[in-house]
């Protein structure tokens, strides 16, 4: 039998990890990515990657990492895969180190570790404040090595459009669009792995890259893949507000001692240096004495929201608070945080070594995603998923520096599992559904290109982003979520009148964007409807009308299925695997 052919979609950490494992095991991989893989969104990750290597003599263990992760995620994550991930983490760090990732070092030449949110241990390995970039490059280099040996073929500048399913509903390949020639083509495969990242773009402005539209996830969702825990969206407490995007200011700034504060007096106009320590409100340290500035992100985000909107203490009356590093010496800041300080300086114009940064929460991470089993396979045979696009490792809130870990671990699982699956796959009947799927995609393309309406897709997208940010981020009300769903339905209707200003068949970015937009709209309904149905508060999902966690009713995974009905998706619930750690109240304000 010929070597199985696997398609990996997405060239961030998860996708590249899967590719490496498949190539190493003798499989052939076709790797699809919208952007050259080295430019994938993983490059933006800053602070580090968690592994309980216990190199600081603190008595850290993988069990403690496991407990922090499950507790941080408010017990919504299935515990079996999380446990396995935390146990695998130390060896993953070793591997990355062997690949040449320039991790920061101790004087003895060992890996250095720093603290991150939601833990009391120094558990985060880091390469300055550009850890994601360094990890992505290391994997990119390994993939290039396999590419040079003919084991990997890259399709960079191709956009995934859909899975090809045979008459039995088994995946047999994909259809994709060449973003330069606009050619639509089918690619056969024995298994496909989606590693297509987060869905930040449906919120308009987020910390995510432009390519993080969730379009691929939505496409397979509309083909029958279940989408899980869609309502869990992480809003990162510290971002640089911007007109075009919200730029992340890494949690590592607080891990290295950064303090969050506002003047105690509303509208205090004095220069910062004249505001004495006692006149500063270090609200995270006061409210959460044990964890201080390193409470998990959902907690910090709600605290900032409260200080700004309930107590009216935002700087100059604006929705902003200080993130202060000025008490730390410049050499330390440069050695450990230079990458993020440069970003602040470039985009804001102030040097955060001299003046406190002004920050505010922003949409950051997608905890939910494609439903997968413990082998990373979705409910459609042959479609696997890994990385941020699946739901498995973070429950209701992700801990900082666990994302890079879950991407690499998920990719390392998905790759070999896809290969094993593909080896025992029965040969397909006929063309495996390729011709039919190509016809369906060609029809969508033709219709879009010939549409003669009045709606601009980029304007529709802005309206979507405003609605999602207003109703489905930090604070959620059922009334608002209902309005958001109605707005999305209106936008889906108006989408029928989309008029492309560009009808050419060469590098037509409006056309590609309009296709993504339809998928964004469909996926947005999963988020707002899932949020509406979950009448409790858990992790990042917070409803003032239902402020407590309700395990009896909602210690369950939300599973959305596409119906095609105007009412939107169908929702089912699945019990959570809690066999190792019994759910307990999540109280970061407790002092012991």
């Amino acid at each position, binding site marked *: 039998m010929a070597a199985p052919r696997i398609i990996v979609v997405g060239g961030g950490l998860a996708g590249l990890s899967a590719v490496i494992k498949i190539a190493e095991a003798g499989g052939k991989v076709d790797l699809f990515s919208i952007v050259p893989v*080295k430019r994938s*969104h993983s*490059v933006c990750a800053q602070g580090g990657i968690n592994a309980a290597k216990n190199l600081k003599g603190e008595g850290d263990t993988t069990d403690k990492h496991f407990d922090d992760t499950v507790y941080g995620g408010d017990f919504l994550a299935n515990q079996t895969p999380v446990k396995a991930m935390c146990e695998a983490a130390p060896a993953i760090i070793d591997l990355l180190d062997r690949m*040449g990732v320039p991790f920061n070092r101790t004087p003895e030449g060992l890996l250095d570790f720093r603290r991150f949110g939601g833990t009391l241990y120094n558990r985060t390995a880091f*390469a300055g404040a550009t850890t994601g970039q*360094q990890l992505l490059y290391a994997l990119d280099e390994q993939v290039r090595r396999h590419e040079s040996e003919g084991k990997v073929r890259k399709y960079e500048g191709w956009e995934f459009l859909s899975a090809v399913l045979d008459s039995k509903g088994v995946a047999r390949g994909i259809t994709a669009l060449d973003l330069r020639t606009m050619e639509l083509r089918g690619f056969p495969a024995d298994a496909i792995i989606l590693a297509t990242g987060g869905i930040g773009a449906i919120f308009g402005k987020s910390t995510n890259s432009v390519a993080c539209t969730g379009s691929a996830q939505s496409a397979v969702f509309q083909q029958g893949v279940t989408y899980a825990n869609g309502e869990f969206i992480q809003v990162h407490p510290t971002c640089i507000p911007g007109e075009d995007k919200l730029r992340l200011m890494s949690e590592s700034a607080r891990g290295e001692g950064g303090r969050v504060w506002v003047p105690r007096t509303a509208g205090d106009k004095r220069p910062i240096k004249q505001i004495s320590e006692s006149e500063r409100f270090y609200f995270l340290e006061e409210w959460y004495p044990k964890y201080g500035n390193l409470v998990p992100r959902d907690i910090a985000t709600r605290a900032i929201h409260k200080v700004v909107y309930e107590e009216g203490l935002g700087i100059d009356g604006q929705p902003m608070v200080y993130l202060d590093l000025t008490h730390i010496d410049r050499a330390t800041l440069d050695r450990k945080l230079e990458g993020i300080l440069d970003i602040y300086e470039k985009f804001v114009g102030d040097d955060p070594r001299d003046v406190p940064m002004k920050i505010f929460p922003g949409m950051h991470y997608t905890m939910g995603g494609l439903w997968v089993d413990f082998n990373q396979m979705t409910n459609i045979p042959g479609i696997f998923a890994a990385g941020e696009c699946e739901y498995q490792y973070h429950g209701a809130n992700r801990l900082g520096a666990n994302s890079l870990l879950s991407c690499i671990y998920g990719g390392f699982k998905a790759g070999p599992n896809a290969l094993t699956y593909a080896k025992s796959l029965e040969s397909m009947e006929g063309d495996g559904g390729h011709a039919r799927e190509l016809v369906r995609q060609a029809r969508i393309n033709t219709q879009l290109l010939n549409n003669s309406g009045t709606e601009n897709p980029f304007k529709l997208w802005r309206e979507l982003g405003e609605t999602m940010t207003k109703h489905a981020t930090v604070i959620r009300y059922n009334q608002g979520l209902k309005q958001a769903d109605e707005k999305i339905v209106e936008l889906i209707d108006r989408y029928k009148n989309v008029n492309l200003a*560009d009808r050419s068949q060469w590098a037509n970015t409006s056309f590609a964007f309009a296709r993504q937009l339809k998928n964004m709209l469909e996926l947005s309904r999963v988020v707002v409807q899932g949020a509406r149905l979950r009448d409790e508060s858990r992790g990042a999902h917070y409803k003032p009308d239902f402020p407590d966690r309700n395990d009896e009713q909602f210690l369950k995974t939300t599973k959305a299925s596409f119906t095609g009905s105007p009412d939107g998706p169908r929702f089912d619930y699945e019990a959570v695997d809690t066999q190792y750690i019994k759910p307990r109240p999540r109280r970061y304000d407790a002092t012991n």
Partner: protein
Amino acid sequence: MATKTVQFEIRRQASPDAPAVWENFEIEWRPGMNVVSAMMEIAANPVTADGRPTTPITYDSNCMEEICGSCAMRINGRARMACSALVDNLEQPIRVEPLSKFPLVRDLQVDRSVLFENLMAVKAWVPLDGTYDLGSGPRVFPQEQEANYPLSNCISCTCCMEVCPQFNETTGFVGAATIAQVKLFNNHPTGKVLKEERLRALAGDGGIQECGFSQNCVEVCPKRIPLTNAISDVSRDVLLQKAKDFLRG
């Protein structure tokens, strides 16, 4: 009071064979605006300054925080990342053109895959036995890490190649970015096992001797990578390697 606006002149080209034309745009000013966000505005309202409907501009961008390396272009004549080109710091009208040394795709989008091909040619990687658990990596002292980390920050934007007088079809020069990666991997305790191969790859036509020491590369690099140092260090190693190879026969 009239709305504050920003003037742009953008070079358009519908395809590699189509003629290049300039289009002018007048866009409402917003605080913190950069060149990419201005192009997002144009996409939402694709009309030129004289009121003529046009197409949204084709360009590369992704992270919007100068780390993915996508949005390199020439802005007021200078090669740089468009996302960190803040409008308030630029003289108007802001002239935006594609990089000139790479095959044009459309408008501001060019094909920079030559850099990735070069990285493959010099084997810019650490050759691993495998990704299974083989224990911890080699010890690296902080001083070594601090020397190598800047080289590892290269975002493959190709600005250094764009501004290099020697980077052209005649010389086939690989450019500074690739040379800096050779230094990085030759420094690595495991990566250096391929040192000789990398140096030989830089020894022939298009190799390191094509460098004319204009130093444009180091001035334009958005990540302040010590490119000229890397070129001198690798240059010396290439010469030594040539001598060794000569003596070996």
